[in-house]
């Protein structure tokens, strides 16, 4: 029952929200539903931590890995909802500009993402992953401007094609399972597959073919280069809270799916094949994103490419394997989402005050918007991996794994790209922060919704950078155990 609660709350909340005409009442109702959702997710996570994996029926299951990602979803969606409550009244353009549609779609989006993490069946996983694309397409195109419509269309098209390829990969894996003698009704169940794969002889060619299609397909949703073309557009043109949700949560959910498939394939044919593919895609994403960061002109596009780069780091961590590599990758999914949310929230504030996101026309922020600049600085330092923030820990773990496996090329690549990105961010941010202020109200302060969430994010980054809370570490460990 507790498994179904987060799903039901999100779904019902989405539909009920459509009935509220008054924007303020709708916002408050949305915040309440959000609070309930987070509470139910926390309860679920705690129950899984105490009791072990939970299963309801044939299709829904929560284990250590799901609960880790659910923590991520809960935390970030809480921040996003609070931020959105203050953001929406200031924005207000577009066909669905009424908050009830916005929040309804957000909860539908959350429903699909939670379902992805709770799927026991790979077919259901696919259906819900496609559902995330559909639920967020209207959110990306929310503003109805030229850029938003183009970004929304591209997002819908590219991701649907990519996910169609993932469907093909799922089918091939199903075929391999049925051919090896598994019961067709259980051949898509992840636990049954993990159990059967080492015992029965799965055709290695089919399994590898399946993984190739899956990594290309779900990799489109993650934003691996060269399937990333939708990402900068969608993350830049969407409303800021949605950009934060996309970058911080959706990419992680897609990575979750790839982790599940990677586990199956590693058990079947040994980790060499899948991990090599992950390293290749991760490396390509890092290099291309790192280079493109240098030439960006739009702040949110810059942040979007940074997401691609960090997904590359996570992929490299996964591809390296080993206890430290996996630990670093998991931790990085969480740390990156916190830092990226902070950055996007600051970018939203910049947009409100300056009216544009073109970095060359923004100068003197440190004097005109001191609080926002502080948030931006903290976020920027965090995102490039500097201590004392938490991303340093996760990237350090991944690099240590690379060195301990004597993969010096991978380590060098990561270090070089991180340095390049550091240079890029420094250049862009310094340009925005220094100089004569113009075009913004003097000393604009952050509204409560904004500084609350930004403060929480900064605290989280610093705190986790100092030392990872014991409970959190335990969660990561439980997640890693599932993948063994």
């Amino acid at each position: 029952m507790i498994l179904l609660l987060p799903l039901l709350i999100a779904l019902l909340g989405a539909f009920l929200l459509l009935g509220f005409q008054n924007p303020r009442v709708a916002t408050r109702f949305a915040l309440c539903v959000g609070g309930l959702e987070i509470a139910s997710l926390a309860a679920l996570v705690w129950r899984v931590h105490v009791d072990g994996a939970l299963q309801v029926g044939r299709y829904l299951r929560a284990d250590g890995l799901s609960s880790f990602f659910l923590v991520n979803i809960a935390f970030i969606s809480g921040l996003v909802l609070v931020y959105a409550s203050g953001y929406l009244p200031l924005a207000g353009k577009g066909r669905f500009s009424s908050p009830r549609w916005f929040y309804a779609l957000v909860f539908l989006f959350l429903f699909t993402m939670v379902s992805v993490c709770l799927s026991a069946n790979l077919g259901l996983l696919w259906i819900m992953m496609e559902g995330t694309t559909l639920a967020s397409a209207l959110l990306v195109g929310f503003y109805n401007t030229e850029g938003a419509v183009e970004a929304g269309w591209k997002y819908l098209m590219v991701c649907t094609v990519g996910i169609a390829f993932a469907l093909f990969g799922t089918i091939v894996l199903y075929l391999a399972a049925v051919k090896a003698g598994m019961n067709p009704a259980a051949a898509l169940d992840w636990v049954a597959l993990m159990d059967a794969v080492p015992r029965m002889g799965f055709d290695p060619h089919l399994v590898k073919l399946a993984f190739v299609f899956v990594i290309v397909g779900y990799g489109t949703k993650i934003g691996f280069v060269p399937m990333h073309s939708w990402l900068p557009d969608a993350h830049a043109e969407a409303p800021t809270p949605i950009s934060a949700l996309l970058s911080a949560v959706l990419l992680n959910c897609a990575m979750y799916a790839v982790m599940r498939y990677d586990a199956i394939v590693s058990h079947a044919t040994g980790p060499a094949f899948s991990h090599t593919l992950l390293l290749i895609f991760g490396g390509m994403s890092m290099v291309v994103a790192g280079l493109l960061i240098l030439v960006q002109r739009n702040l949110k596009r810059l942040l979007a490419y940074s997401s691609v780069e960090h997904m590359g780091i996570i992929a490299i961590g996964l591809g390296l394997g080993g206890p430290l590599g996996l630990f670093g990758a998991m931790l990085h999914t969480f740390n990156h989402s916190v830092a990226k949310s902070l950055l996007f929230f600051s970018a939203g504030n910049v947009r409100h005050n300056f009216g544009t996101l073109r970095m060359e026309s923004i100068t003197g922020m440190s004097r005109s918007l001191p609080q926002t600049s502080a948030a931006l600085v903290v976020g920027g330092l965090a995102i490039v991996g500097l201590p004392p923030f938490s991303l340093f820990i996760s990237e350090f773990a991944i690099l240590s794994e690379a060195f301990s496996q004597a993969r010096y090329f991978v380590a060098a690549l990561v270090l070089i790209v991180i340095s390049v990105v550091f240079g890029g961010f420094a250049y862009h941010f310094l340009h925005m922060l220094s100089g004569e202020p113009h075009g913004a109200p003097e000393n604009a302060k952050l509204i409560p919704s904004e500084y609350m969430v930004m403060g929480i994010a900064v605290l989280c980054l610093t705190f986790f950078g100092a030392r990872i809370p014991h409970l959190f570490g335990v969660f990561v460990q439980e997640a890693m155990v599932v993948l063994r």
Partner: protein
Amino acid sequence: MGLVEIATGKVLSSFSVFLFLTVLLLVVARRISTSVLLFSVQSAIIAAGVFATGFQERLAEAYVVGALVLLIKVIVIPRAFFSLVERLKTSRDVKAWTTPTQSVFIAAAMIYLSYAAVHSYGQAVNVPEDSLAAAVALILTGAFLMVSRKKALMQMLGLLVLENGIFLAALTTTFGMPLVIEIGIFFDILIGLLLMGIFTFRIRETFDHLDVSKLRRLRG
């Protein structure tokens, strides 16, 4: 042998040939309505294949899936497309980057490629080569349609053809997936098409045309 057995046998052995024909005709079609008609013919052929498979393998689920294919892909979706074309008041021409002659040579090359690909993997699975090659050819054709057509509606159609190919691949190799999953996939496709329809209206309103090759504001 009863007449039904003969009919199913013949359907199963020959439906890939007709699918290749629809592939060739799809890439040369010059009007949106012709392309949609060819898509519905294609889906009807696949539905016939589903029914024949269900009869031969004695799978009750296959009948449900076949009925779904018939209902959704042969009737509902083409109807929606036709009404969309009318409501959008767009020109009925399929703007393509390639001439019909080039397109049909590319289609011929794709068919050859799909046979080559299936041949190399054919030993792993003992399925009729023709049907699997037809599935791969449909996937390639769908991708080709999406890339070579400038109209947003044709991109949607290309996506549908691609999905037809994947569905056919699932049908030939594993006689379909569990019923619930199939239904979920259909549902997803319907909602996806609905959203794409909404977006085409928005594109038309914002940009005043439906030429997606001109959506190039966001670059870099």
